[in-house]
């Protein structure tokens, strides 16, 4: 575990943290920003008001890469289950940036697969 390059270390920790927060209490996702919605408050509001009560993510795969401007590109693919909906595949990309001594997600793209993964 200690042998991972630092971006993998940070990336996988972020992903674990993010989905844990997302599944348990979405209101805590304070520093996540999406491209289509600006501003932390608006984002948290949007996330909290998404029309499901319960959600669970299961990560099938994740991958991390360093970018040239010292950000980290993280990808997570997996399955999620919201309320009583059937299990759906999803794919999410994060761009993590180091701002004032903390790693923060500046961009996040989420895509739901309308058909299941195998």
């Amino acid at each position, binding site marked *: 575990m200690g042998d991972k390059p630092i971006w993998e270390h940070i990336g996988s920790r972020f992903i674990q943290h993010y989905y844990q927060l997302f599944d348990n209490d979405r209101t805590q996702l304070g520093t996540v920003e999406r491209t289509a919605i600006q501003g*932390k408050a608006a984002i948290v509001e949007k996330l909290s008001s998404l029309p499901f009560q319960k959600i669970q993510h299961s990560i099938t795969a994740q991958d991390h890469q360093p*970018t040239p401007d010292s950000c980290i590109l993280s990808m997570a693919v997996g399955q999620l289950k919201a309320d009583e909906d059937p299990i759906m595949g999803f794919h999410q990309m994060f761009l993590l940036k180091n701002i004032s001594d903390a790693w923060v997600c500046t961009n996040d793209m989420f895509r739901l697969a309308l058909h299941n993964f195998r």
Partner: protein
Amino acid sequence: MVIGYRRVSKLVILFLVSEDNDGGSSRQGREKDWDSFQGDFRKQTHHYQQGGYELQPPHLLKDYGYMEKREVQRYQVRHTPYDVQHNKRGMKLHKEGCSDVTVWRGRKPLEREMENTQDETTGRWFKIIIPYGRKYEKTWLMDSIQSHCSVPFTPVEFHYVKNRAQFFVQDASAAYALKDISYKICDAENWKIAIFVSTSAVPYSVRDKLAPEEMEQLKLAMRKRYDVSQKALDLRSLLYDPGFAHLDIDIILNRRNCMAATLQVIKENFPELLSLNLRNNKLYQLDGLSDIIQMAPTVKILNLSKNELNSTWELDKIKGLKLEELWLEGNPLCDTFQSQLTYVSAIRKYFPNLSRLDGQDLPPQITTDIDKPDLTSPSIKESCERSDAMKKQVVQFLQQYYLIYDSGNRQSLLGAYHDEACFSLTIPYIPNNPAPSSLFEYFKDNRNMKNLLDPNLRFQLLKHTKHDIVSSLCVFPKTQHDLNSFLVDMWLQSEKMLCFCVHGVFKEVEGRSQGSVHAFTRTFITTPASDSSLCIMNDELFVREATLNETQRAVSIPVPTPSCSTGSTLSQEQQEMVQIFSIQSGMKPQWSQKCLEDNEWDYIKAAQVFATFKAQGKIPEEAFKQIS
């Protein structure tokens, strides 16, 4: 009899061998051997004890019940108050054809001993041993034992020896009570914790406890080394310090009694201690220092450099301290790490708040702090509308890229990548099914984080420079991408970067898995290049087997224009939804699409919303199609 004995020792050896392998495999090793052991046990008439006795499932303890008495009688003669018994070098023990463990499980020997020694002073000490106690954290272990034990007690000189944990108690009733709760406490994995009690000599730290005058001298000497402004206590090289030479005692900190005395002085005189320097004191282990968590919990800066600490596990004993700065250089443990990064990560496991190690600032860790002020990044322009020019550029880029990619010679992709670009490939890990055979070709390059265990291999699979990238791309089987199936998400655009994701399918046109269709997602981070094309900085590829649906829709002949509409693109199903909605509601397709989008593509919900709005008259005229 002889034959039986030989069989005994062989089985025992088997078991012990697996026991020695520490780490994750040891539990499995034990279980495996346990199964074979169980079988043999029924057959064997000889009784023996395997090293892992404390891991016996409860139902088998009964079997040992009768054995207990017998063994006890056998070993009465051998009973000695000072232990050779707890010697974990099982080979030697078992060669003698006996085991010490059962001795202590019967009440008889202890009682017998107590009878013998009733005339002695009441200051009788008992050694309490928890075999395999090493895997438990000290606070958890002691709290569990204290809460289960009917008699309160004070543990003295708690420390770890090889695999076990041990401490001393002075009170006979406490010792009995502790013996009673052996196998009563379950750990997190439901193994019962064994507790073994034996009499013992006075523990060293008590025997050699500093006399009050010595404590006084120590206190004065330490006062001289205390810097009030920094709240720092400098105890480095105490052994060699001339300042302590006038004392009657040698303050050798690696001795338990000295460390205990030092901590006592700290607790009484420097209660808000911030920084402690224990450099160059020949510390071999940190068992003595572990009491610092109770004695001086405010310490944030600790210097343990130039000692004799062999493993980071020593830090486990003091991990209750919220250290911000730590010095460890000059210890043997530092040489066990392959790189600075692995060293730092290992240390950070114990002290997550650590910001300086060996005098160097550490890179920050991830936090999500909702109290942080709003972040503004002026260089990033985020907008919901993607300009047409941008879209065109991306489409053109993809067309060119996949033209070369599918051409059979990917070498000319060199021009598309930046010198310092990164590329990686991931394939989903399916725990129950073996890898689908058609993804075989890619498997050797798989770097799914969850799957890879060999860190070196993992690092190699992240291709770094454009040459490495293109050479590995050339190795992948020849493909035919279905550009018609592409969905492109424009993800981020700024002056410097353009990020987008491509989802689609492709076919393998040659090789082992010819004809199989795969689905992929590829994320590109690009920068504008000089000739108005895009230069790839990061390329992250995820490949999986295509579903039946996707396979059916994939065509073999590529049509070069991928579709890229405003905002996010619509899939086939979504387009169909829009059409039907448009027909049913009478609204134009764009409006139908908007309605569906706003309702997360839930058709029924969108229909309800539409009906409500229509009834309320909220929908403008122009939304509806002209009925000609």
